[in-house]
C-alpha cells in the first residue's frame, strides 16, 4: 500500500466508518449519536497519547515539504482521527446513571495515567486493546445482561431488588444486540486504523520516550 493510498483513502475511510458505526444506537428507534463535548476532550487526550508513543508522526501528515493535496489529506486524517477517537470512547461510556459517571472519570484518569507512563507504540496498542476490550465487556455484556428485561420470575425479582438498592442508577436503557456488534466493529477498526497511522519508527520513538523521561526525572534548580 503506497503512502498516498493509505493517507488519502484507507485511513479516512476507516476512521470515518469508526465514527459512523460507533454513532448508531439501535433500541426502539435508531439514533445517530455524535460524540459529546466530553468525549471530544477525551479524544484529544487520546491523540496526545498516540502522538507521544510514536504511533502517529504528525510531521508525516502535515509539513512544508509536502504538496497542498498531501497536506489536506493529512489534515483530513488528523480530524477524522480526533472524531473517531472521541466516538470510540463515547461508545464505551454507558448511556445513563452512575456507570456513565464512573466510566467517564475512569477513562479520563486512565488517559492521563497513560500519558504519564509514556508507553511506546507497541505497548500503547496493547494497552488500548486491553482497556477497550475490558470496557466493552463491562458495558455490552455485564451491564447489558443486568439491564435486560427479565425472562424468569427470579430474574425479575433480582432486578427489582438491584434497582431498589441502587435507586435505579445502575440499570441501563435496553438496546438491540446489533448495537453491540456495531460497537465491536467500531473498536476493532479503530485499533487497525491506529496501527496503520504513519509512525515515528522504533528508534526515534524510544529516543523520544527516553528524552521525555529524562526531563521528568531531572531535578530542577531553584
Amino acid at each position, binding site marked *: 500500500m503506497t503512502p498516498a493510498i493509505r493517507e*488519502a483513502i484507507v485511513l*479516512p*475511510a476507516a476512521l470515518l466508518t469508526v465514527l459512523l458505526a460507533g454513532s448508531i444506537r439501535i433500541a426502539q428507534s435508531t439514533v445517530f449519536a455524535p460524540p459529546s463535548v466530553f468525549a471530544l476532550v477525551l479524544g484529544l487526550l487520546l491523540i496526545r497519547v498516540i502522538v507521544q508513543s510514536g504511533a502517529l508522526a504528525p510531521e508525516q501528515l502535515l509539513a512544508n515539504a509536502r504538496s497542498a493535496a498531501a497536506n489536506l*489529506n493529512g489534515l483530513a486524517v488528523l480530524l*477524522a482521527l480526533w472524531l473517531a477517537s472521541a466516538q470510540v470512547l463515547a461508545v464505551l461510556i454507558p448511556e445513563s446513571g452512575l456507570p456513565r459517571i464512573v466510566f467517564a472519570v475512569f477513562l479520563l484518569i486512565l488517559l492521563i495515567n497513560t500519558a504519564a507512563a509514556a508507553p511506546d507504540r507497541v505497548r500503547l496498542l496493547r494497552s488500548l486493546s486491553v482497556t477497550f476490550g475490558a470496557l466493552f465487556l463491562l458495558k455490552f455484556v455485564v451491564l447489558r445482561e443486568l439491564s435486560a428485561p427479565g425472562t424468569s420470575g427470579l430474574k425479575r425479582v433480582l432486578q427489582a431488588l438491584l434497582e431498589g438498592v441502587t435507586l435505579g442508577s445502575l440499570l441501563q436503557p435496553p438496546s438491540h444486540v446489533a448495537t453491540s456488534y456495531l460497537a465491536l466493529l467500531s473498536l476493532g477498526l479503530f485499533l487497525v486504523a491506529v496501527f496503520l497511522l504513519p509512525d515515528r519508527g522504533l528508534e526515534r520513538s524510544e529516543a523520544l520516550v527516553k528524552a521525555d523521561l529524562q526531563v521528568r526525572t531531572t531535578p530542577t534548580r531553584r
Partner: protein
Amino acid sequence: MSAAPRNDGAIRVAGLVFTVLYATLIGWLFTGQPQTVAQITGGLASTIGAYSVDQQSLADGLRFFRNDQFVEARMAFARADPAIRDARTQFYIAYSYYRQGWGRLYHDDALYGEGLAVIDRAIALAPAGRLVVEDENLRIHSGEELKAELEAGRRREASDFNPMRVFRERK
C-alpha cells in the same frame, strides 16, 4: 516526470473528494436522524432531485381520506412517501389527524398533537416554507391555516364552553 507522482496526485484528490462526501453523509445522518433505510435512501435521492412519491399509493390515500377512513388513508400516504420528503403528502397526513380528531363537543388532543408534528414537518419540507395545496375538496389550503386550526383545537378557552360550538362545522 514519472507516472508515480502523477498517480499519487490523482489518488490524493480522489481521496479528498471521497472524504468530504463521506463526512457530509455522516453529518447529514447526525442532523437528519433518519429512522429507516427508506428514509436514508429517500433523503439522499431528494438531495439530487431524484425522489418522487408513489402516485398509486397517493391516489389510494386520497380516496380513503375523502371517505373519512383516516387510519387507512395514513397507511397509504406513508406508503406513498416512505422517506417523509413530500410536503403535499405530509399535509394530507396532518389534515387526516385534524379531521379524525375533530368533534362537535371536544377535539382529540392526542390526534391534534400528532397532526401538529406532521404539519410542522410538512412546512419545513415545503420550498421556502410556503405550503399551499389546491384541492377543491378541502376547506383549508395552506400549512399555516391547518397549523393554526390544530393549535386552536388544543387550547383551553372560554369559547370552549359556548353551547353554540355544536353548530360549528369541520373544515
